[in-house]
């Protein structure tokens, strides 16, 4: 049976999601999406211009890709909700990545505002993907509110530092019944592979691919790493810890007659 990620009735086979900002051109972005066979691309509504004769980023998203609009620029729940509604009205679909950032210094998300926006938008029928700091209680409430998945950050946006939040993401994977998609901070394909080995449902990468000297080649490398990590997770990863040679704590019991 094929291993697919089911979200809102769609079967997604490639678990590498790609963000579309920061590329040197839409053309390069398009080639990276095509070469990596990505099936989900996030697009910031703030960058979409449907009103002028200029290039429209949406025209460069391959047909096979599901577009997930993000609310980049929103500073509170109300702004995120308005951006989501604008996106829907503009015909950009109903997959929404909620990004509420009040902190331009680190670009860390505001979990409380993100939860509030999730509650409103899920009720309105959006397929909601909240971008969040990996906090179990809030993640549970995102689930209750109707989020389709949660998107915890690996490390702050753009830092390429990898999965610094590993322990917390592992807890989310273990405890939540919805997909956990690591978003932000992944710099190397090996970072993505680790996420998938842990049981994450997918990863989202933007900066590392967009600013690589060869974005197309790097996107393909990420795609392969995601596939390898996923295959390893499904196959089952043997316990990495060696058994202790003796039983220092209970060995004395063996001497009991």
């Amino acid at each position, binding site marked *: 049976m094929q291993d697919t990620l089911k979200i809102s009735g769609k079967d997604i086979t490639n678990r590498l999601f790609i963000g579309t900002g920061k590329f040197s051109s839409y053309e390069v972005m398009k080639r990276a999406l095509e070469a990596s066979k990505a099936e989900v691309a996030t697009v910031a*509504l703030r*960058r979409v211009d449907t009103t002028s004769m200029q290039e429209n980023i949406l025209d460069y998203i391959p047909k096979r890709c599901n577009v997930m609009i993000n609310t980049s*620029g929103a500073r509170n729940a109300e702004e995120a909700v308005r951006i989501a509604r604008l996106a829907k009205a503009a015909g950009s679909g109903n997959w929404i990545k909620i990004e509420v950032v009040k902190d331009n*210094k680190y670009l860390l998300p505001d979990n409380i505002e993100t939860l509030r926006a999730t509650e409103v938008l899920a009720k309105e029928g959006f397929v909601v993907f909240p971008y969040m700091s990996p906090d179990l209680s809030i993640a549970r409430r995102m689930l209750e509110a109707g989020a389709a998945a949660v998107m915890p950050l690996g490390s702050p946006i753009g830092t390429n530092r990898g999965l610094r939040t590993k322990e917390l993401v592992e807890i989310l994977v273990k405890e939540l019944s919805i997909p956990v998609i690591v978003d932000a901070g992944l710099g190397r394909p090996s970072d993505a592979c680790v996420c998938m080995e842990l049981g994450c449902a997918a990863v989202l990468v933007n900066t590392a691919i967009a600013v690589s000297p060869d974005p197309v080649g790097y996107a393909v490398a990420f795609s392969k790493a995601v596939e390898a990590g996923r295959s390893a997770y499904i196959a089952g990863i043997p316990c990495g810890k060696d058994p202790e040679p003796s039983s220092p704590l209970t060995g004395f019991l063996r001497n009991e007659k």
Partner: protein
Amino acid sequence: MSFYQVYAKNLGRALQTDDDLSLEAKAAMARDLTLRYFGRAIQLYTPMYLANYCDNSCVYCGFNINNKIERRKLSLDEVEAEARFISSTGLKHILILTGEDRSESPLEYIKDCIKVLKGYFSSISVEIYPVSEPEYASLVAAGVDGLTIYQEVYDENIYSKVHPAGPKKDYLFRLDAPERGARAGMRSVNIGVLLGLNDWKAEAFMLGEHAQYLQDKFPDVEIGVSLPRIRPQVSGFKPAYAVSDRDLAQIIIYLRLKLPRLGISLSTRESALLRENLLPLGITRISAGSSTLVGGHTQEASPDSAQFEIQDSRSVEEIKTMLYKKGFQPVLKDWMPI
């Protein structure tokens, strides 16, 4: 020397690198940080001068009240004609400017212009005389999302010398304007120094401190800086301090390393070649297809009535082509009214 002069100049010396190798190494760090946080994208905007009436006598400025230049302000029809022309180039971000004469360019006039401009642009910034917090809030309510206001020079002694008369003499009212704008709900606040009025090291240092203060205090506001060097204008003012291309590069590198998320704009005051070379060091926004004349996008006007001379007169299309060639994506729209 005043406390300011001793303090800022001593610390400002840390900015200067005479050794080429270490400058190159810092430049590489600045480039990497910029790529990481802003990617290969450069936002484009253009200024639109609504009026050039001014009640100040800034010695370095073409709009100085004492300069005998043709004074005018655009009618709403003229604003619309300019808007139509600029938006046909694809730009969605506009910066509107007036001279600082409130009686000739009152807020109500500026808001009427904004009403027209909203039909054409997705982001409107203002560069006008400093106003109160409720007045900034009224501009936000009218559809403005960005505030640009330069202190020009942080050294108070020099400030009072180069601003001998007019409301702009009030150093503190201007210094606190960015903060009032941020509190009033501006999404982006852009500050700047006019390079050439003082030792660049002291001014760049103070600009960095001011930007950091704003960024710390208003984490949800995008803080940006501009680094205009004094350009020739009608009165023939000559800057007292030289600022070389190397100095300008050092300032950009210093600010990027200090504040990785800081927006840094580079205007058409600088030559095409220099702008292209400075781009990777930390620039995030550049102007294109600029004119510093009232109505200058669509009308003929005497070059004498310009605020200053521009050096890079390339069109939006030419700038876009240049950016693609240099490996950058021109971003024409990066916000919208929500």
